[in-house]
């Protein structure tokens, strides 16, 4: 494990954590159907995502379900990647899918805590679908600032090997 962590440090960035989540689309479809007024969407989507969601109102159900399922999976995966140092809430995370011009999907994380925003680097995300399932994989980098990164690693990862270096 320490070797992997060390090898991942590139320049001033290093790996903070990874996370994965899988979701069964029919479960999301059932929740959407059971609760009125887009309650589920309003619970898990950020303001920006809700705007996109409102544009989907005329779309078919599977498209709406997929939109929610992907965001659910991505946010759960980010949560796992940041845990236990940081515990993001639903609306602090915004997922942007593949852009029309072909740019990779991204996740933005805006924490109310400024220290957290300064510590967390790029969040990489990959999403896949197969019929009834969607899966999201996330890798989070952190800015490596001398003692700060060392401290995060020793508290954030398994204890006992405090000799990890950036």
């Amino acid at each position: 494990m320490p070797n992997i962590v060390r090898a991942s440090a590139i320049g001033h960035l290093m790996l903070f954590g990874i996370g994965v989540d899988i979701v069964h689309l029919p479960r999301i479809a059932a929740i959407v159907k059971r609760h009125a007024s887009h309650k589920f969407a309003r619970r898990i989507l950020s303001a920006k995502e809700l705007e996109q969601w409102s544009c989907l109102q005329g779309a078919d159900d599977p498209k709406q379900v997929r939109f929610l399922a992907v965001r659910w999976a991505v946010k759960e995966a980010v949560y796992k990647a940041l845990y236990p140092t940081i515990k993001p809430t639903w609306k602090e995370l915004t997922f942007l899918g593949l852009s029309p011009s072909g740019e990779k999907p991204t996740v933005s994380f805006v924490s109310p805590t400024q220290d957290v925003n300064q510590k967390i680097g790029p969040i990489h995300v990959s999403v896949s679908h197969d019929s009834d399932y969607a899966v999201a994989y996330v890798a989070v980098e952190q800015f490596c600032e001398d003692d700060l990164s060392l401290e995060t690693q020793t508290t954030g990862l398994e204890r006992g090997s405090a000799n990890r270096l950036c």
Partner: protein
Amino acid sequence: MSFFRLATRSLSRSTFASSRIPSRYVPRARYSASAGLQQNDIQARVFDVLKGFEKVNQSKLARSASFANDLGLDSLDAVEVVMAIEEEFSIEIPDAEADEIQTVQQVLLAIDYIAKTPEAH
């Protein structure tokens, strides 16, 4: 789908805990914002909501039951439980509190807290 999120949440919610009144001290009639809602009624309604979830192991349904460990619910179920509770009691549990709820006891405390704190609506 994930048990992780549920299983790793912090258990302490002092905001709710401090507002709770032990039921044996509750007077004959309460004229609070809860409009006469009694603890037992609230608990029965919460249990009914949970019974509506197919996968809930009904024999494990108790005040102290944990969503993940006792009732077999995962994080997606937990979000739906909170939404169902909000609908049942016509309340809105703030996101930060809703995210932390992972036991039946925490649901009851959240309802109690909101009932007694009109500005929390």
